[in-house]
């Protein structure tokens, strides 16, 4: 039997929230949280409980669904739910799994759930983790060299390339930051922004940024903005909360 999908719903309109919750439960999903605004999503995620997908209304108080996704500390399967299709293009630019128009129907929702379930059901077993200091390949001329992760401060995604920053900037073999995050899972890196994967041990200082974000300072004076969503996790890792 398939494990029920654990869903967080963010919707500010009571009847629309009730409808989506009812339809998801009827489709044997588990509603792990119902929040009524954008900041509520981060408040819940910061508890660290498990969730398989986020169903986000686009127009909500505090932060829109699109803003929430831009500030998420790590990627989640996202389904946007909205009354009007004007945001569809931006939603898919944010790599949403699906985009539902209100009123949501059971039939249409079933297709969304199928999309959400398929990657889980066809997931390949985890590869064995290497032992010893972890190194990863980067491009060097015609060949590859292996960099020590402990000497890397952060990874960024720019111009379609995942760059490793280890004193200098090196081109990695990963196509996306999510791919890098998956390859480096369990090695203490923190998705600090949509385009930034940070090694908290490389942070030498922090200061408050705008709108609840924080700015992390690395050795050499490089400053990196950490999203509002990722800020609590970084503070925790730095022993600040």
């Amino acid at each position, binding site marked *: 039997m398939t494990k029920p999908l654990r869903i967080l719903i963010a919707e*500010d*309109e*009571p*009847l*629309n929230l*009730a*409808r989506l919750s*009812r339809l998801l439960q009827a489709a044997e999903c588990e509603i792990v949280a119902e929040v*009524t*605004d954008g*900041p509520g999503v981060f408040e819940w995620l910061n508890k660290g409980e498990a969730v398989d997908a986020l169903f986000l209304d686009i*127009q909500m*108080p*505090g932060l829109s669904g699109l803003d929430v996704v831009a500030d998420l500390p790590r990627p989640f399967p996202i389904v946007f739910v909205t*009354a*009007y299709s004007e945001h569809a293009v931006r939603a898919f630019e944010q790599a949403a799994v699906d985009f539902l*128009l*209100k*009123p*949501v129907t059971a039939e249409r929702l079933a297709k969304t759930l199928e999309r959400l379930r398929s990657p889980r059901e066809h997931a390949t077993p985890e590869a064995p983790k290497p032992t010893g200091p972890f190194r990863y390949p980067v491009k060097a001329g015609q060949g590859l060299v292996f960099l020590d992760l402990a000497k890397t401060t952060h990874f960024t995604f720019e111009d379609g390339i995942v760059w490793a920053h280890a004193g200098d900037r090196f081109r990695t073999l990963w196509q996306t930051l999510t791919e890098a995050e998956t390859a480096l899972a369990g090695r203490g890196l923190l998705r600090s922004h949509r385009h930034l994967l940070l090694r908290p041990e490389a942070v030498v200082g922090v200061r408050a940024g705008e709108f609840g974000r924080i700015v992390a300072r690395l050795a050499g004076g490089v400053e990196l903005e950490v999203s509002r969503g990722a800020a609590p996790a970084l503070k925790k890792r730095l022993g600040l909360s």
Partner: protein
Amino acid sequence: MLALLLTNLSFAVLLGWILANKERAEEREAEAVQAATIAKARALQSQMSPHVLFNAISGLTELVWKDQKATEEALVNLAHLLRNLLDSSTRPVDPLTSERAIVEQYLAVERIRLGARLRVEWDWDEHLESHLVPPLMLQPLVENAIKHGIAPSRDGGALRIFLRPEGSGFCLGVANTGAPFEEGRPEGIGLRNLRERLSLLGERPECLTLRKQEAWTVAELHLGLTPEASQ
């Protein structure tokens, strides 16, 4: 001599025809400009945001599972509102009673969407409500207050709709305690349309004001005394 007279007469007739023709052309041009102005003013007249309408309809698809009578009432109200919005575009003026009726219907739709986050109070001088105004002056102010004030606020807010005498005319306005008004923020499309419509209707631009007063954001229309609807 006769030939000279005939020549002058012909010239006078020709000149008269040219002048009359020019006058007719100018009249036609003025009529065309006026028609275009009216058409533009009507096009700018409030059209309820599709976002509000779709959300409300979606809400009703759930309400029908919980309370059939409330759903029926809401659908009847929605039909009245849509009909009134369409009808108002065909009339040059409406009494303020009609403005209030449309806003009450509109607020009933918004309540489906926002629930208890929307708290409405009226401060309405009934002695003034027979005065005639161009249609849909009040509804865009209410929609603007909900869109930028109540809806973006986590706890919603109070919405106060008022009509009160002011000098020789009256003041029609909407205040809300939702998300605070930011001075200098560019106006949204609803207020811009309303301002342009007022200008096309010959009103002064300063007759529409938007300001902050303690916890309230206040939008006001200051209008001179207008004719009253015949009883």
